[in-house]
């Protein structure tokens, strides 16, 4: 907090003890509600989760959760998890979606940003229109793509134009194609986000170096790779991180399009947890899964944040 003390020093205030006291007190009260909410949603539930994950408790057992110790099974849920092939398959599927969608969204977003960095007539209008997909409620977007990929829907209709016979692919009930449809929806909805962030980053790259490079006769591509992209490094990392995290949580669009089906063909980690929660009702086990995911994510994110803030300092 060295920054703060410097700011205090700059303030040409009658820095009496009263003022300082008042500030400390006010600062405390102002942050209190947020602190409480975080405790309420994070700390207490996680302790509760740890407790329930050691039991075989389910809401149907007829005993309240705080007496779940009667069904104590220790670490059985965790060992079960290690050999739960459906869980690992769901995790793998989530990674597949991530590995396919994030790079495509990034490249499309970057390409669009390049197009939009220069002025052209109607730019503002085009810009707003391109942002529409990401503002559509994800559940509704899921329904839109559910409609598009019907066997008698527009996607097949469009494909029919290019082939001699009418195409009637049942996208969403074909185990190998359903995931493609789901990824198409995600790419459609979230490429604009990449575009928005990358464009903002590209605009903020200072012009002077680029001008100098132009005078020296550097080609556009060379300027882009050697000046613009390196300057956008932090922003690119932020954009990629946001999308990676969000895709890990993917649920709404996917669940409405396929419900995780056919079978388990599009079951990602969130859909899997949801199904075990709502259909199988083995909450002790769900608590164990959720806790493992939370711990892994915390470690990964703590590492990512520390690397990023280190990187920011070096810059």
């Amino acid at each position, binding site marked *: 907090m060295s920054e703060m003390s410097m700011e205090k020093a700059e303030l040409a205030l009658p820095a009496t003890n009263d003022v300082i006291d008042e500030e400390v007190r006010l600062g405390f009260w102002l*942050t209190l509600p947020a602190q409480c909410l975080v405790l309420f949603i994070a700390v207490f539930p996680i302790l509760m989760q740890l407790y329930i994950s050691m039991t075989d408790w389910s809401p149907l057992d007829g005993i309240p959760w705080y007496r779940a110790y009667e069904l104590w099974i220790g670490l059985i849920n965790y060992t079960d998890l290690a050999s739960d092939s459906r869980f690992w398959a769901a995790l793998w599927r989530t990674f597949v979606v991530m590995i396919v969608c994030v790079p495509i969204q990034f490249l499309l977003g970057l390409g669009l940003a390049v197009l939009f960095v220069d002025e052209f007539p109607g730019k503002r209008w085009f810009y707003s229109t391109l942002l529409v997909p990401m503002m559509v409620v994800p559940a509704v977007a899921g329904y839109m793509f559910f409609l598009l990929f019907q066997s008698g829907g527009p996607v097949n209709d469009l494909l029919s134009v290019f082939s001699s016979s009418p195409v009637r692919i049942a996208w969403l009930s074909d185990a190998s194609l359903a995931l493609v449809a789901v990824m198409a929806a995600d790419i459609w909805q979230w490429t604009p986000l990449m575009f928005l962030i990358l464009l903002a980053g590209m605009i903020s790259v200072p012009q002077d170096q680029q001008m100098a490079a132009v005078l020296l006769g550097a080609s556009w591509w060379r300027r882009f790779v050697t000046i613009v992209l390196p300057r956008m490094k932090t922003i690119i990392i932020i954009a990629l991180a946001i999308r990676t995290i969000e895709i890990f949580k993917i649920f709404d669009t996917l669940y409405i399009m396929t419900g995780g089906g056919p079978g388990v063909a599009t079951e990602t980690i969130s859909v899997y947890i949801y199904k075990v929660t709502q259909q199988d009702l083995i909450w002790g086990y769900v608590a164990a899964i959720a806790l493992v995911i939370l711990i892994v994510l915390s470690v990964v994110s703590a590492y990512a944040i520390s690397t990023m803030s280190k990187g920011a300092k070096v810059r």
Partner: protein
Amino acid sequence: MILLLLAISLVPTLWMLSMAFKPIAEWSASGAELTWWPKSPTLDNFRFIFGQSSSELIVSLERTAARPIMASLLAASFGTLIAMTAGTAAAYGLSRFGKGSNLPLALIQLRLFPPMAVMIPLMIMWAFLGLIDNWFGLAVVYGIVTLPFAFWLMKTFFDDMPREIEDAALVEGCSRLRVFTRITLPMMRPALASSALFVFILNWSDYLIALLLTTRDWVTIPVYMTSLSSSMTGQLYGAKAALGLIAAIPPVILGIAIQKHLVRGLTFGALKE
């Protein structure tokens, strides 16, 4: 090139729009021919979801869309209020006095977690408190989930604000709290408004949380929309499209209105403009 991309970004929305205005004969499952635009546009789908049975659809709804719309509005607005109140206060406290310096990271972590991963304890707690299927219970969760956005947005706005005016008032002998409520907050009105709209869009867009925490009386629009298909009539494509359209319009309009601040909000203030 750009025109093609524009087309791609608009077609799914337009297709649903056209669905919403199609009469049943044009969208029923057996519906023979695919038409890009309704041949005989009708408002039947909208009438249907608000409880008026149409001539062609013999079924009528057990519960209309009016209540889910109200539930969505109430939960999203109140959730926004909670997030903005706690977020703005904390942002100011941290921006000016450096209090609660563990908050920023805690809040980012909160945002990283899939909501699915804390739902079990939350559902148990909410059942215990009688907050399941209750708009207020939903609003509290929304408030917590969107708190990181409210906090980070307002923090960057406070950080940007010049302090000379506040300092002047302090020298005049105003108390810190008075400066905050009488000078800073009124000056921040545009920032508060766009942050609130941003948070509202996020709350309005939720599906998963409402799916888990509401069952009947307070289901929100997306949950209600999916339940429309499970009735014995099969898929009610047109009606669902009409409802989807109603759900999609507010965020799109609000989103375009606060376009300028979208980047800031979505990147937790790491990027401005």
